[in-house]
């Protein structure tokens, strides 16, 4: 039989209709991301408030300072920060080398460069000299400045800033990266659940075998399952991003659409992996056991919680086998630095390659029980 999208769509429609009637799963689709975001969001420092910072506005020294003043008041209004002083009188020429150090109790110095307003939209980057000893506080400062810059420019691509660590390990900066990890993790856990459990249930009910006794090809069923569930992924990813923006106000420097697309690809990746793994589960209990098996390394070894650079080599190997590692790198570059695909094309290719590989593997082992 020829491959036919008609059958793929039939499988997809069947799954969506079934899902639509499964109220508990719909509840899970909606509440799982909210819950995860709340738990992670609060646990990982988005609730850091009133961090003492000093702002140094060098812009005013030369002509108009409209933009930097606007930025200043924006930062003053951000309850993550508490401004102790507006140092406008420090001599121009202050830079990283000459900077004497932070005052006691102050976590960061934020410097608007000379001619910030004048050279807009191509000013020198806003400099941040931060105490890197508490990564979550650094995240709050970077987050506040990023939000401010996005607000000023209205265009994410203009945003430029530098972070200089005065204390603490410069390499140890998991902080900036927390939100991409949370996004990836939430998508992963639900997509694994969906694909593994539903697929095993379908096989146990005899549907898988019955479909095999029709002109349907394995790849059609796998694609149909994938498409159906990926629509759920679209729904959930949108919801996640909405929560990220609205509730936690996490800055996304790059394009939201890009983040969305990348998360979607990651969702397909996880779905295919789930479909593949489910072939090895005899029943739903066994299927559930795969979930922690996939989740735990993905959380601990992907750079989500601990930076990969600190791992011994053999663990690094594991890290780079995890799709989660790649999505975190991809999202981090974009959400925190506004760098799109061109900065992570290698990681993107690996992720896409893994997705296709899992998909093919899933089709190969589909209805593996056939003996």
């Amino acid at each position, binding site marked *: 039989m020829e491959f036919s999208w008609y059958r793929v769509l039939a499988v997809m429609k069947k799954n969506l209709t079934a899902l639509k009637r499964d109220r508990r799963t719909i509840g899970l689709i909606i509440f799982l991301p909210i819950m995860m975001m709340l738990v992670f969001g609060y646990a990982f420092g988005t609730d850091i408030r009133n961090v003492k910072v000093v702002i140094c506005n060098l812009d005013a020294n030369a002509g108009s300072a409209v933009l930097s003043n606007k930025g200043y008041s924006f930062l003053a209004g951000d309850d993550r920060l508490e401004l102790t002083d507006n140092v406008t009188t420090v001599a121009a020429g202050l830079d990283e080398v000459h900077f004497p150090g932070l005052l006691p109790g102050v976590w960061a110095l934020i410097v608007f460069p000379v001619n910030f307003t004048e050279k807009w939209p191509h000013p020198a980057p806003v400099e941040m000299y931060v105490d890197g000893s508490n990564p979550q506080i650094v995240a709050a400062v970077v987050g506040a400045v990023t939000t401010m810059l996005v607000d000023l420019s209205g265009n994410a691509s203009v945003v430029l800033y530098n972070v200089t660590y005065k204390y603490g390990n410069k390499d140890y900066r998991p902080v900036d990266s927390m939100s991409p990890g949370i996004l990836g993790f939430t998508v992963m856990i639900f997509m694994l659940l969906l694909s593994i459990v539903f697929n095993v249930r379908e096989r146990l009910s005899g*549907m898988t075998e019955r479909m*095999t*006794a*029709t002109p349907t090809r394995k790849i059609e069923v796998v694609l149909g399952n994938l498409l159906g569930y990926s629509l759920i992924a679209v729904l959930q990813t949108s919801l996640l991003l909405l929560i990220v923006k609205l509730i936690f106000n996490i800055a996304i420097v790059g394009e939201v659409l890009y983040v969305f697309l990348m998360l979607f690809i990651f969702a397909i990746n996880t779905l295919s992996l789930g479909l593949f793994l489910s072939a090895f589960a005899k029943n739903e209990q066994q299927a559930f056991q795969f979930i922690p098996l996939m989740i735990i390394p993905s959380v601990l070894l992907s750079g989500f919680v601990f930076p990969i650079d600190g791992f011994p080599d053999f663990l690094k190997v594991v890290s780079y086998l995890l799709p989660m590692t790649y999505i975190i790198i991809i999202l981090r570059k974009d959400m925190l630095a506004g760098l799109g695909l061109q900065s992570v094309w290698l990681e993107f290719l690996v992720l896409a390659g893994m997705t296709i590989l899992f998909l093919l593997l899933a089709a190969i082992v589909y209805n593996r029980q056939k003996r």
Partner: protein
Amino acid sequence: MNINRKLDKEHRPKTTLRNYKCFGWEKMKVIQTTKLTKAFDGFIALKDFDLTVEEGTIYGLIGPNGAGKTTAIRTMLGLLLPTSGTATILDTPVKDIKRVIHRIGYMPQDLSLAMELTIFENILFFGRLQGMAKRDIDARAEELLKLVELEKFGDRLIEACSGGMRRRASLACALVHDPPLLFLDEPTVGVDPDLRSAFWQYFRNLTEKNDKTIVLTTHYLTESEQCDIIGLLRDGMLAREGAPKDLKMEVPDGRGLKIRAPSVADAIIREVQDELGLQSQADGDFAVIRFTGDFDVTRILEIVQRHATTYGMELIEPTMDEVFSHFTSSKGTAKLAANQNVPDEPEVMI
């Protein structure tokens, strides 16, 4: 054999000598297996299974639980890989069965429907997998729902259906694309007797008028009588095969005459035993005389007429249970009986 049988263009048999036969003298062999064997982890579920099913017949695989009926069907459908032996289905080796699978309908033994979908949506789904257009499926679904007497329940979710309704819905799904070859694994389980006989009438209609071929399993022995050919399976082996009426002829002392001849019954029996050596016994006014196969009944009647001028007579045929017990050997008879005599009471349907 209907010469005008509509042949699927795509699958018109090649004009070889063998296939010429199928147009004229010999019915086409829809299924042919040779020494088909299937072992699971050392356990042999099917052994040297030789089966030939001709077009336009209902072939019943009969046997106790675990006899290999379902394994046989699944192997013939290519859902299980045979350990050894070959199977040719619709002129196609079973390994290439995907080429002809659209001409096969399969109703599995277990539920195999999408629980969260309605009966109609399930039919629609399987119709679409067969590549049928929505419009055609709609029309066909209406027909099928009427057949399985579910026309009022098309919108009911499978999970809300009783066991019997699920079986009927499953049958409808297997029939949706009107396939020439049907594998039905226990199609009548949990279906009440009235509807069961309607099913059988439908099956007969399919095979006799439309040249379809049906391979089914059943454990209702009485019902197996309605098959054209039955294969008696035991421990994975085809113990015996044949038309029910032929098999009945072979049961020793299976047939008989029950003669009503008041007061002379004893005398008749004595003479029958002496002259013909037939097993016989008196039962009040009746003389029950047992014989095997097509014994010449007139010889019995001669004796009867010596004693009585008027008498009543009834022909006794062996039941399918007796046929089954006979052909599946003695040692397992008790076990078989326990498995086979499923009461024919209808399952109460909601």
